């Protein structure tokens, strides 16, 4: 399978903490990758650096053959100019833990806004496609509702549809169900499972071990800013090699 994302020697230092300590990570087209690991291990930072919400300190990221950041001669990351960068980075869709829907737009408005403004798609076409996406996530009845009138699970499904509307090459999910009541995580996970089955490329940071096991093609375990272990879900969950992964899985079982 073609490699769609390649990250090399990624380092991210915040003022006094180093969140990523030289991470190498790549993703193939159509692959669903789950990232697990303890709090503060750098999962979000890794995910956010893929669509430029976090600027890395050094390293190289290539998305679909285009390198948008690389380490310069001075050892610091050099990004492409803003315009090109925003175009490349918008080729990944992001779903956030807290949805971040636009509260002043209807559900359909949330979904069509970027395609119309960024891609210049005509309004009626964008709305037609938006309605299809709403149907995909089971929200066709909520097209004209404002996000404030949706439940948490509905909001997150709308946010997924919003991300999909830009036809991203990769969908990124940062703990998409962590802000939801346990009873309704299922409706969001079902949508994601459906996307995985359609062979969309997805990277999912999650604490839902059952979901990772069932849906992911590959599970990546991070700790202290490094990828400690990765492999098929069966390997990772049933035959963890590193001690840190073993104790992490133990702690997840207890939780």
């Amino acid at each position, binding site marked *: 399978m073609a490699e769609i994302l390649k990250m090399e020697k990624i380092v991210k230092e915040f003022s006094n903490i180093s969140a990523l300590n030289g991470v190498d990570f790549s993703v193939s087209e159509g692959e669903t990758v789950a990232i697990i690991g303890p709090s503060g291990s750098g999962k979000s930072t890794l995910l956010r650096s893929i669509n430029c*919400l976090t600027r890395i300190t050094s390293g190289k990221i290539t998305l679909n053959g285009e390198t948008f950041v690389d380490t310069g001669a001075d050892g610091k990351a050099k990004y492409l100019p803003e315009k090109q960068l925003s175009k490349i980075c918008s080729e990944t869709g992001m779903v*956030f833990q807290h949805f*971040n*829907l636009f509260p002043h737009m209807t559900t359909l408005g949330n979904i069509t806004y*970027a395609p119309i403004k960024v891609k210049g798609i005509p309004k009626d076409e964008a709305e037609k496609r938006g309605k299809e996406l709403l149907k995909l996530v089971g929200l066709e009845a909520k097209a004209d509702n404002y*996000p404030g009138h949706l439940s948490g699970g509905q909001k997150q499904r709308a946010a997924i549809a919003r991300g999909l509307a830009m036809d991203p090459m990769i969908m990124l999910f940062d703990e998409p169900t962590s802000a939801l009541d346990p009873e309704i995580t299922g409706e969001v996970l079902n949508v994601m499972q459906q996307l995985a089955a359609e062979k969309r490329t997805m990277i999912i940071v999650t604490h839902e071990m059952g979901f990772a096991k069932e849906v992911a093609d590959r599970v990546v375990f991070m700790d202290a800013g490094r990828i400690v272990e990765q492999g098929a879900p069966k390997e990772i969950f049933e035959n963890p090699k590193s001690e840190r992964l073993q104790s992490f899985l133990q702690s997840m079982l207890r939780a």
Partner: protein
Amino acid sequence: MLDVIQQSIPVLLKGTVVAIELMAVTLVFSLPLGMPFALGENSRIKPIKWFCNLYVFVFRGTPLLLQMYFVYFAFPILWNIQIPAFPAAALAFVLNYAAYFAEIYRGGINSIDRGQYEAASSLGLSKAQTMFGVILPQMMRVVLPPVGNEMIVLVKDTALVSVLSVADIMKKTREIQNREVSLAPYLVAAVIYLIITFVLTLWINHMEKNYSKYDEQES
């Protein structure tokens, strides 16, 4: 008493027109003018930021009455041009209120969750698209109550222009009261101010209701 009231009403209504004109001019110019100052205060370009901060500091930190006198006398003293009292007063009002609105807008912009910027950026929206399509419309909702508050303050601030002999409600009231020894004109003037603030309050409430259609529903 009754006939003083009767006499006062038409005179004071003329003053009311002047007061409302002043409010209208002030709002039409200061509401939009506050925005560049608000954005400027958040600017990463240091001189712009400093200028906007200084502007807001000066106009909020000195009395409107002083600013009004200053503008009125600045023209004849500095440039030897006599300008009529109304435009001078209006200019001071616009500059003053723009500073207050800038501060309110800035607070409104800063109250918008970072996640909104992140969502916009992840969708590939430009800085301008994010500002005008995502942040400012939400800011409107946030600033409506404090802006409404300032409008009410403005109604009463218009009385200040009487010191420049602009024939507003207050000036007219004083005129009648100089002729007739009676409190009646003050009562009529008070009622007029109350009516204006009442109507304004109704309108502000209506606007807030309009915006609340996309508020979170507590179920």
